[in-house]
């Protein structure tokens, strides 16, 4: 492979990371928030799809994609609130409810989304960060959607707030030891309800990115499991918002390997390269999950770790 081909592949990986990672990032951040409070919401795949549909429909009717983003967030928050409310009831398993919510969210999205497969809605624009390079490929790769920047900012704020604010402390305490939180006079149920609701909001916004920016259209196969992978990324990122961003970026870049290699003529073994993100995730998890550090970072109240 000559140098220019290597550059082409690297540019494609960079572009892939910037284009594909945003929905992973939002869902992973939302799930990170929810799991920090001691609850697992597996339904974020449904939230993502429902958010994508709501965003597209709202953008189509109002003509404003940003209203669509808001609608997606609110739709996601509604699903999150439902999950949070049901899990408050006694003897309810949050994992089972999560799976039910996943099917519910996609089902509702498909039902209401039928009318929006055909029409074209206004999409979100992009910020061109790479025009100064004068290279059209790099310029295209560096076209960044504002939602990506919002996601990065959210991750930074979450990372800072977890460690440095009273709210962050209450959230982490609810996740690590419910009895301790109760002794402090904190309503654990309320904290978890709010965390699930906010997590749903973020996942919904991730859906808006899918339908309004990239790939930028609404259809039923839009998500194809990205919400589920993002939930797994949280474990991979060990409940740290900044690592969630890194994991989403890595996953996005790895997803671009398959098409990028085929486009420069490395055509053999594309099934293997298309599986690259999953193989990579698996390898890093195996390498990192065994450490004592990893088990210390998991919220103690999570039903998967208890």
């Amino acid at each position, binding site marked *: 492979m000559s140098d220019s081909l290597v550059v082409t592949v690297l540019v494609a990986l960079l*572009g892939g990371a910037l*284009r*594909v990672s945003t929905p992973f990032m939002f869902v992973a951040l939302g799930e990170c928030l929810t799991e920090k409070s001691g609850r697992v919401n597996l339904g974020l795949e449904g939230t993502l799809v429902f958010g994508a549909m709501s965003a597209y429909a709202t953008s189509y009717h109002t003509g404003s994609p940003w209203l669509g983003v808001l609608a997606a967030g609110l739709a996601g928050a509604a699903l999150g609130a439902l999950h949070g409310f049901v899990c408050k009831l006694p003897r309810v398993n949050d994992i089972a409810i999560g799976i039910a919510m996943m099917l519910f969210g996609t089902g509702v999205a498909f039902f209401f989304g039928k009318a929006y497969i055909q029409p*074209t809605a206004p999409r979100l624009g992009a910020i061109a960060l790479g025009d100064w390079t004068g290279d059209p490929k790099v310029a295209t790769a560096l076209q960044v959607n504002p939602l990506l920047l919002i996601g990065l900012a959210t991750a930074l704020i979450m990372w800072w707030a977890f460690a440095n604010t009273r709210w962050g402390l209450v959230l982490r305490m609810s996740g690590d030891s419910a009895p301790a939180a109760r002794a402090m006079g904190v309503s654990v149920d309320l904290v978890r309800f709010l965390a699930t609701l906010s997590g749903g909001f973020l996942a919904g916004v991730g859906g808006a990115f899918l339908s309004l920016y990239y790939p930028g*259209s609404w259809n039923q196969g839009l998500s194809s499991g990205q919400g589920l992978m993002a939930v797994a990324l949280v474990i991979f990122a060990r409940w740290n918002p900044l690592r969630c961003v890194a994991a989403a970026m890595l996953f996005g870049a790895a997803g*671009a390997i398959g*098409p990028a290699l*085929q486009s420069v003529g490395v055509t053999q073994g594309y099934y293997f390269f298309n599986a690259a993100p999953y193989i990579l995730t698996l390898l890093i998890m195996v390498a990192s999950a065994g450490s004592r550090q990893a088990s210390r970072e998991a919220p103690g109240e999570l039903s998967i770790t208890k």
Partner: protein
Amino acid sequence: MTDFRLTRRGFMHSAGAFGATSLLAGTSRPALAAGVTIGIVYVGPRDDFGWNQAHAVAIKSLKNVAGVKAVEEENVPETDACAKSMESMVNLDGANIVLGTSFGYFTPFMVDLAKKYPKVEFRHAAPLWDGSKHPKNLGSYFGYLNQAHYVDGVAAGLSTKSNKLGFVAAKPISSVLSNINSFLLGARKVNPNAVVQVIFTGDWSLPVREAEATNALVDAGCDVITCHVDGPKVVIETAEKRGVKSCGHNASQAPLAPKGFITGAEYKWETIYKIYADKLAKGEPLPNMLAGGYDSDMVQNTPFGAGASEEARKAATAAIADLKAKKPIYVGPLKDNKGNLVIDKAYDNYDPYLDQMNYLLEGVIGSIT
């Protein structure tokens, strides 16, 4: 599969028929002369800008024909659900013919239903029917879409400046390979320097990877993009966004690319469905195998879009006339892209040898493994 398995609908139907015969000694089925009812089952939504839409458009045109009623059901998975859906079309809607439009509906579901309801016709949209194994009231129909992709190729070959055409493909099965190869041969006919670069995504519907593949092809210098995936919406929209031209697949995607759309390969199921409805109304037997291309009006090309130059339009129209006159697409000697001679002579467009295609021709950049 046992015949004693009772479904609720099957039971109600038998009980109803028993009651009717014992009381009235009449028939339990509505008489055929009352009209023709066509039942059709889709695997996805009817308006997916792709495979399902192509069928739905054809059914819609049938609804205007007097005496024909159509019953549709969409989003039916390739499981027992399709059998239930088809059975209720037979029992509750009195369908005379049931059309299954997804590959996985055939075995065991449609085969079993055809045995269970010998008076109802079942037809499936892929060449799977085998006279030695399957019931006579079951059959297959399909269109040779590669002929329309050949026409796409002719138009694309005259629309490219970089001589690189991009093809986003789902899986390397023979029908997909034949579309890619025909697209190349069409392009090469008018532009000997044209090459086709193919990216396989690995599955029929992966919108994000399809968008990635389209971007990668454009980055690699392709200035015309076409595809063979279930819903070409994302590919065509991404190509338009990147400012390159595009050719469609399955149904009309012209509205998605007002600037760059050239033309597209479309099925014309309408022709086949009208033959079925007509023969059923007259009480004539239906053919078990019904397939064809341009010469029997079973495929078509989308009307030219803004991306097609005058030259491209002329050449594509001439190519359509050639296909209607049964002029062969595959004229040897042709090598595959590994250097083996695969097409030694001129093959008829319907030669079974071409159905076994498992290679990409020289001029296609890509690999099937």
